[in-house]
């Protein structure tokens, strides 16, 4: 048997589980051993499921009886601490007294259980998903650096090969940023594709649920399991759910790759730009057509996401403001929640008007391209405690810089994926970001999977 089976991708695990060459119990014990060994350094789990062994034993019984549920059956996965769970407490990253969440499964957790996944535990997140640092979690590639956020714990535990999939949520980049900084895959599906019912809200019209994983295929198995309409989520779409695995292993010679030369380029760390230009050359060399374009509206988009995110978060936390519970929040999150009251009604609506322009402008771009390519993050993982970093020609706030390239896809609600595309000169991972048309995850996956198969990045792991 493989020394650390849990470090292998789901396709391999699933095949062995189904054939009886591997048991879910053995796989879970391997995950738990790695948690015991590594999480003292990473501090990325906040809770482990007491019933995990019972879940694994049940999966083994079912598989032995020929009742195989699919690729996730018997596979340990983790979920971010803002996904409500019946068997574990949820804190959404806060220690504030007086803030409580229901003990019931969120829609995604219920779907993962239905698919036979073993919910092994909950991962650390930046408090209320309002930040991209996730203290005190560490980046497995360099323990002195941040894992990103707000799904930083999920990024760290996947990068450390503890579980092949950990769920995250993404309001401005919170799946893709930790994926890029930790060297994993991170998939934000189209708004409406995956139910957010039972996920602690941050900003209703920007929040997305999705996986972080070892490989593109691993995210695809998770996406197959969690997609679909849910009347309990007002943003949920009544759209057909294809079998996303059909996009794996497909050619991309007919692909048209868009490159947005304003906003996405010109202000990134040099190693990031170099890795992305190499990725562009890969697509060109395999026969894809490159199409360069500009989106001038992006010059106004940061104010729009600030207006929507601040006002939404403050509306959600109005009870905590009124009760004084915000005084128990960390200082930075408390400040953000308090300042949302300064965003005016016209500001909010103007932001929603800008969103309409952005969506329509992107629709015109997608008449000529199938995916849009760029960096996920303009910088690699920064040192813990550092708030300013050199990006391009200037010193910039890491918080402002880190989500610059991801939030446009939240404003537009389009599917976007981050996958590893190299390392900087200090050995830190760099993320390649692809986005596609609404509900066209198939093309997104096809483009990402082809890039992944053409490189060896997914086989490079941190030495912990």
């Amino acid at each position, binding site marked *: 048997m493989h020394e650390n089976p849990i470090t292998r991708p789901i396709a391999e695990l699933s095949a062995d589980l189904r054939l009886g060459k591997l048991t879910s119990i053995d796989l879970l014990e391997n995950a738990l051993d790695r948690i015991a060994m590594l999480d003292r350094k990473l501090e990325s789990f906040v809770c482990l499921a007491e019933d995990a062994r019972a879940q694994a034993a049940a999966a083994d019984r079912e598989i032995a009886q020929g009742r195989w549920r699919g690729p996730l059956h018997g596979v340990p996965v983790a979920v971010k601490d803002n996904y409500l769970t019946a068997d574990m407490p949820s804190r959404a990253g806060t220690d504030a007294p007086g803030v409580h969440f229901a003990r019931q499964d969120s829609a995604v957790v219920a779907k993962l259980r239905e698919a036979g996944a073993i919910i092994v535990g909950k991962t650390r997140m930046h408090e209320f998903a309002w930040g991209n640092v996730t203290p005190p979690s560490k980046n497995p590639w360099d323990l002195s650096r941040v894992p990103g956020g707000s799904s930083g714990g999920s990024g760290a535990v996947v990068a450390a090969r503890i579980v092949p999939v950990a769920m995250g949520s993404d309001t401005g980049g919170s799946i893709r940023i930790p994926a890029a900084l930790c060297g994993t895959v991170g998939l934000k599906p189209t708004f409406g594709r995956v139910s957010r019912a039972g996920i602690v809200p941050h900003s209703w019209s920007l929040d997305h649920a999705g996986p972080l994983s070892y490989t593109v295929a691993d995210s695809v198995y998770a996406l197959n399991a969690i997609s679909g309409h*849910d009347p309990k989520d*007002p943003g949920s*779409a009544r759209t057909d759910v294809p079998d996303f695995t059909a996009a794996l292993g497909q050619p991309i010679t007919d692909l048209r790759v868009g490159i947005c030369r304003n906003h996405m380029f010109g202000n990134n760390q040099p190693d990031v730009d170099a890795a992305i230009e190499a990725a562009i050359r890969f697509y060109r060399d395999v026969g894809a057509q490159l199409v360069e374009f500009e989106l001038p509206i992006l010059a106004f988009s*940061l*104010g729009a996401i600030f*207006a929507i995110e*601040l006002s939404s978060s403050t509306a959600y936390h109005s009870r905590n403001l009124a009760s004084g519970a915000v005084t128990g929040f960390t200082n930075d999150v408390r*400040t953000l929640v*308090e300042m949302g009251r*300064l965003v005016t009604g016209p500001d909010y609506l103007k932001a929603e008007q800008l969103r309409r322009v952005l969506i329509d402008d992107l629709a015109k771009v997608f008449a000529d391209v199938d995916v849009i390519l760029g960096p996920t993050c303009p910088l690699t993982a920064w040192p813990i405690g550092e708030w300013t970093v050199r990006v391009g020609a200037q010193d910039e706030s890491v918080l402002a810089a880190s989500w610059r390239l991801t939030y446009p896809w939240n404003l537009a609600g389009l599917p976007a994926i981050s996958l590893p595309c190299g390392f900087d000169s200090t050995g830190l991972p760099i993320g390649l970001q692809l986005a596609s048309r609404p509900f066209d995850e198939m093309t997104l996956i096809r483009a990402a999977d082809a890039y992944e198969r053409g490189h060896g990045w997914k086989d490079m792991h941190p030495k912990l």
Partner: protein
Amino acid sequence: MNELEMLVEALGIQLEKERRSAVLAAFQPMAQEIAKLRSLDLTDVHPAVVFSPVPASQQG
């Protein structure tokens, strides 16, 4: 008193003096971005969020 401080007063936002300074200072760069947004003429653009008279239980 600058525009933001006047807004805090007008909205009746209760913040201790120290908190008010911290919140306003942190909001300053965001306010600058929102000011850029305000400069756009989007008169003929309907917001992306569309009202629906259908009850929440029947939507989606």
